[in-house]
């Protein structure tokens, strides 16, 4: 999940296989988010590369679109895994993950609620403050945030947050 958009949705977006409403949601997000535009460009280049590769080796390795799709998923999963591993200890990676959680929460119960839910979760967790959330106290912070989310978004919203935050 990147900024509330799942990996599957990114792949389908690049393959132009998304429903119109979902496609419009992603495009609206891309208009505002430079980070995702950059990410999208990178993935589009990878997609193009895989297609070109498939064309070049069509006779020797008859790759179908389905396989390209799976390979693209693989590349995307590796990129995300690598980013997660690299960022596991760094403060910017934690901050970015908190930002993602905030965006997921904001879509459900508003920006103000999301910002304050993160603040209260951090304050009442082992971190003690928003800026002190680290890899070590991440689970304590996430548990608090999930419990707040269960009040505003119910069990489904809380589980979404938990799954996304529990990397």
């Amino acid at each position: 999940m990147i900024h509330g958009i799942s990996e599957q949705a990114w792949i389908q977006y690049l393959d132009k296989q998304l429903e119109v409403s979902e496609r419009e949601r992603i495009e609206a997000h891309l208009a505002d988010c430079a980070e995702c535009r950059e990410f999208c460009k990178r993935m589009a280049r990878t997609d193009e590369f895989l297609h070109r590769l498939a064309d070049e080796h069509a006779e020797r390795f008859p790759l179908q679109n389905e396989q390209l799709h799976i390979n693209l998923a693989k590349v995307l999963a590796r990129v995300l895994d690598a980013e997660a591993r690299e960022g596991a200890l760094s403060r910017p990676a934690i901050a970015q993950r908190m930002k993602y959680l905030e965006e997921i929460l904001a879509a459900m119960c508003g920006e103000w609620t999301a910002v304050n839910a993160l603040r209260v979760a951090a304050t009442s967790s082992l971190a003690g403050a928003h800026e002190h959330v680290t890899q070590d106290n991440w689970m304590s912070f996430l548990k608090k945030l999930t419990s707040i989310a269960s009040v505003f978004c119910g069990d489904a919203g809380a589980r979404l947050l938990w799954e996304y935050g529990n990397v």
Partner: protein
Amino acid sequence: MIATRATPRLMLLGLTLQAGVWMGLHLPVLFGREIHFNVIEGTFQSAASILAFALALALNVEIAGEYRQTPWLRWAWLFLGANAGLSMLREVVQSPLLNLVWKGYTDSPLQGLHQHLVIVPANSFLVLGLLGMWWAYRQVGLGFVTKGYDYAQIAGIVCVLLALLFSRRGLTQAESPYLVGRVLQHVGLLLLATAAAASVVLHRMALQMGGGKLARALRCLTLYAALRATLVLAEALLFLHMPEWRQTNGLLHFLDTFCWQTVPWLAALAGAYRADLTVHAQKELQRYLAGKAAPIAA
């Protein structure tokens, strides 16, 4: 899962259809034509309102099941469901169609008594639902604040309520031969005013949230409680000045009936918006889990 089918769009379509058909039946009368579709109009109005409340009931019960970790909110949505269920019964009790089986029922004081026997528990559940919700959100400690303007609105509601209760002339049950009916109307008004005051505070919370699907649901709930209260109070005030206003002022009667028809759909819309949040979260979760479990080709 009813939430995936009973979307906010469907509720708005239901409201538009009801309003359209009802206006089609009622407009000739408004323009002085002598065509009356009282039975058809009454049947349609009751059926559509009961349908809207039934949808609200089903959605609210489903939403309550979403709060296994938060008992306050589980109860709050169950109370709102009970309010919708009793409102269905109220639609039956106040339907002019009962005149067909019980001659002169709607003009008899017994109808007023029956109505208030349903209204009081319905309003109690509405108050409990709104207050439960307010308490649950407040307990989290995010910093929701009630502003001076909200207190002024609540003070206004209290003033109108006190004026009505003390003057009593604007109350439909003031002349009722049944003591229970007269007392219940006072209690019902008190509860409705409390619901309106609670909805003012919830509306402030919705504004403070800064968007999101939950805020939409809260706004609809606010509108549902506030519109009911406004209509009851406006009717009472009109009754004070023009006791025969329903018969003599066609336009006011038209507007009043029209507004009452939107009330059940607002309850359904609030449930649909809240349920839409769950549907959204479940879809996102499925996408995320599917992406995570996607097989990687060698």
